[in-house]
């Protein structure tokens, strides 16, 4: 998968955009085998970019393409298929279903994609210390626990590109390390890459390119 940005600019940022950016209003290309970390303080459009790249917002100037095809040409069904098969997303606000249990939240994804996964969701939950919380509703978990559930859900599907929006913001160092290992493993298994936004911290995760947003 090849994602090319062509002078892209989210509309809400047009008025305020005044800083140096490697992404906005530039020509950038993300390739599925590679790993990108995008650093920026808050307010520079990290979440906007993630939502834009998975088709959840269409309010932008310029153009961007997936495998040469303009994103403007994708309809809702195309986007859904893309998110189901080729692009996994971990949202900053997690977007879990609080009334469902941990297990149900994960299964909501696995019953949709119907693919055998490595690493298996159960083993990822176990690695992140969530095994005992399996039957609890997500609403009853702490934010840090929820963040780990959201990461497992994002990794429980096939993808060419993984979009991570500040994925470790509420994790301690140990869990961040385990999460990085799982991300690394899942990407290697799939031959996929990731685009991860962060506030500029260093994580135990090898990246091919760090860009300033």
């Amino acid at each position, binding site marked *: 998968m090849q994602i090319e940005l062509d002078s892209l600019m989210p509309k809400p940022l047009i008025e305020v955009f005044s800083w140096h950016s490697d992404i906005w209003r530039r020509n950038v290309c993300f390739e599925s085998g590679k790993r990108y970390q995008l650093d920026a303080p808050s307010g520079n459009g990290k979440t906007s970019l993630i939502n834009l790249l*998975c088709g959840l917002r*269409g309010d932008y100037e310029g153009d961007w393409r997936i495998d040469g095809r303009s994103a403007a040409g994708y309809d*809702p069904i195309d*986007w*859904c298929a893309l*998110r189901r098969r080729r692009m996994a997303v971990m949202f900053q606000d997690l977007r879990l279903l609080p*009334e469902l249990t941990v297990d149900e939240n994960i299964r909501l994804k696995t*019953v*949709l994609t119907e693919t055998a996964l490595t690493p298996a969701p159960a083993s990822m939950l176990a690695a992140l210390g969530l095994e005992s919380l399996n039957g609890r509703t997500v609403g009853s978990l702490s934010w840090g626990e929820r963040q780990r559930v959201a990461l497992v859900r994002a990794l429980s599907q096939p993808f060419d590109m993984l979009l991570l929006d500040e994925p470790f913001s509420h994790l301690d160092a140990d869990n961040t390390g385990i999460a990085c290992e799982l991300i690394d493993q899942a990407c290697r298994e799939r031959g996929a890459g990731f685009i991860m936004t962060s506030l500029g911290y260093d994580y135990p995760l090898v990246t091919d390119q760090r860009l300033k947003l």
Partner: protein
Amino acid sequence: MSRNAANRKQRRRLLNRVLFSGRSRFQALAAMTSFVFGLVLLLVSLNLAIGIYRATRPDHGMHADYLIVNKRVSIGGMLTSMRPTFSEREIERLRAQPFVVDVGEFTTSRFRVSLIADPAASRPTDASDDVSPAAGIGMEMPLYTDLFFESVPNRFLDIVPHNWDWTPEAPHVPIILAREFLNLYNFSFALAQGLPQIPESLVGAMAGWVTISGPHGERTLPARVAGLSDRFPSIIVPASFMRWGHDQVARQRPERPSRLIVKTGRPADSVMLDYFSSHDYQINSERLRAGQFGRMAFVALGVVGGVGTLFVLLAVLLLILIYRLQLAEAAPRIGLLLQLGYSPPILTRHMLRRCWISVSFIALITAGVLTVVLPAGYRRLHDLGFDTGQTLAPGTLIAGVAVLGVTTLAHWITIRHAITANNPGT
């Protein structure tokens, strides 16, 4: 169960939990109950109305479609000895009415007719087993009576005996007798006089000699009852015999008809009844009673059906509103499912499937109630004299399917709207 099927089942269960978490379940159940109630009212009244319509329609055995019409006999007419006959013009005008399918004239004999019931008459002409009991009746019941004959065009007969085409060479004159006459004899005359009752199966063997006489002489021929009619309160002979009799002994044309038989497509038509009363025509109202009752039943069933339709309409509205409420409650979760990659077709299929299950459930319960209610309705109609048969009319089935179809369609539109409204990025 294959892995895929298990997966799908799990997915359906999860989606149901996410989308319909049960807060409006009781409301939906109440709406479905009133829906079933309305649908039953609508379909039962429709089906019974179709049954009554069929029963009172032409070509059905109730004979409400054949009316015998005559003019009122007035005192003025009695004094002036003017007979209340129908002129050519009056018949043409009647024939032109929209409710009239066909008009036939009764031809009344202008010669005298007398009958002697005589067992000897049957012997040379009929060798069937019926002969001897009939002969016995004849012997026990020596009967002489003055009679009259009428004839009508063959197309108006409810039974046409096999030897009805009479010629002067025929072994006997076939006669069709009103079943009423036989009943009158069996249950009134025979009982009062101590005479034997005659079963219908032996009527065909009742035979005798008919004598017709007029200014130009007299003829005596063997005659036999060829059948019983429910349609004519009269004694009917073949038209060919009637012509022959007039030629032979009366030597004059028959009079203008004083009675007509009218075949109508709409026995319960008020326009028809108004027409007859405004022209001072009388009709055999007994026959019309079923038709008039049918009209009343139509009105009653119309009211019930109207209430049912109203119920169905309100229930569909309620169902849709509740469904919209459910989907509005689920809107953020629909949006989230779309974000996770549950595409609009997947979600639509899932929700439609659920809707289908509800609709099938409604259809099943309605069908169950109908199988109990409809036979009771038929029994009631049967008691009232309607031979409607016990069938589910195709019209009823179509109406039921149409109502359920429209309901499904309305749900589908609601679903589409909910999904489009929650599509991210648009």
